[in-house]
């Protein structure tokens, strides 16, 4: 795990865990289009999953632990790889021109940092309710609708920027994970790249639909 290739594998696997979570998270968010009750029921169901076999919030807590571990490992690997890269090129070029197509590859580190900052805000807003007008005790749907109220258009704007950043991060990241794990054949590269683009696109649209719908009054 200490080698550069090992760290890359760590990034790929933890990245995959987070992408999987994002897909489920996005599907859950879309429940808001079926009404506040549907969304609240879903939030409640997440906490009572496997009850009475396991106590309240067991599954959710396990998911949270896995996610935190993934985030920490992903960041650890990214930082140590970035430092290795910095050391490998101590003298910079006077002129340097990128030859590969696609700018997304060059904003991975910056994008990752932006996303990390956003996640902090996002948890304070909708998980802990600290920066949410309704606070922690309100029903999930109330928090969500109040959070993206037209008067708080700047919050929606933060979300738009962050989600687009996630999309760009994944456009390179998803394909890159396959490459890192050695699952890319000569013929599959194109398909995988297309798939990564498609998945990123779907996630961006799926994540932006609820906040935009609320801010523009489609969902009340």
């Amino acid at each position, binding site marked *: 795990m200490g080698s*550069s290739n090992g760290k890359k594998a760590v990034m790929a696997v933890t990245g995959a865990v987070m992408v999987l979570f994002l897909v489920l998270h996005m599907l859950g968010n879309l429940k808001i289009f079926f009404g506040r009750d549907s969304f609240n029921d879903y939030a409640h169901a997440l906490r009572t999953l496997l009850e009475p076999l396991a106590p309240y919030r067991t599954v959710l807590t396990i998911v949270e632990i896995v996610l935190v571990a993934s985030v920490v490992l992903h960041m650890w690997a990214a930082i140590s790889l970035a430092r290795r*890269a910095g*050391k*490998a090129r101590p003298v910079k070029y006077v002129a340097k021109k990128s030859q590969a197509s696609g700018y997304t590859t060059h904003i991975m580190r910056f994008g990752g940092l932006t996303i990390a900052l956003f996640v902090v805000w996002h948890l304070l807003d909708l998980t802990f309710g600290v920066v949410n007008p309704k606070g922690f005790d309100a029903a999930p749907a109330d928090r969500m609708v109040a959070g993206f109220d037209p008067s708080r258009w700047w919050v929606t704007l933060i979300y738009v920027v962050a989600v687009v950043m996630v999309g760009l991060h994944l456009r*390179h990241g998803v394909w890159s994970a*396959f490459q890192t794990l*050695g*699952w890319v*054949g000569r013929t599959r590269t194109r398909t995988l790249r297309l798939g990564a683009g498609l998945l990123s696109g779907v996630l961006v649209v799926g994540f932006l639909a609820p906040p935009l719908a609320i801010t523009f009054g489609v969902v009340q």
Partner: protein
Amino acid sequence: MNLTLRVWRQSGPSDDGRMVTYQVEDVSPDMSFLEMLDVLNERLILEGDDPIAFDHDCREGICGMCGMVINGVAHGEQRATTTCQLHMRHFEDGATITIEPWRAAPFPVVKDLVVDRSAFDRIIQAGGFVSVPAGSAPDAHSIPVRKEDADDAFDAATCIGCGACVAACPNGSASLFTAAKITHLSLLPQGQPERVSRAKAMVDQMDAEGFGGCTNTGECTAVCPKGIPLDTIAQMNSDYLKANGK
């Protein structure tokens, strides 16, 4: 053609180095990039100056000795072309051309545009071989090889070890070079016995030399004079992970 060159000059490994500007006149568009530098060097020698040091040998794109970063691109903007095969007709008359050495900590500058690439040799020594009795060449058809594998192995084997991939990589990674060498052997029957240990030994050596990690940017393939494809790196990763999984 008349050109302005901004060239990296560094008298030795301990010198700080700097960009120096030169005017070169009457350059023929049919000259290669190296011939153009030869013309400048002849003048510098006549003027009692130190000629610009650069590596070269075959001058026909097959040995891998030449290489410099031209206007920010390793081997220049002409695709799939070594510096020695780059011709001046691709430049505009009156242009300013910036010339720098490969930049990577494992490739220290020896002088001017010459860098020490022995790190590549040590990666090869770590595992880029097959331990079979090497007598006279066997008959070509004595060991059957699938056509697709033979083609892919041959493509990977065309790597000339120039180091442009390292120079272009934003991480200073040697993954494309190492992957080309690993793929070339791991697709052929002769390479099978050491396939997994080879990948581990070569990747570990690459790390030990101080090259950066790969982030799949594809900058390497884009400048590679032999067009080594990025999926060789997937092949290397797969072999390497197998070595660590077992």
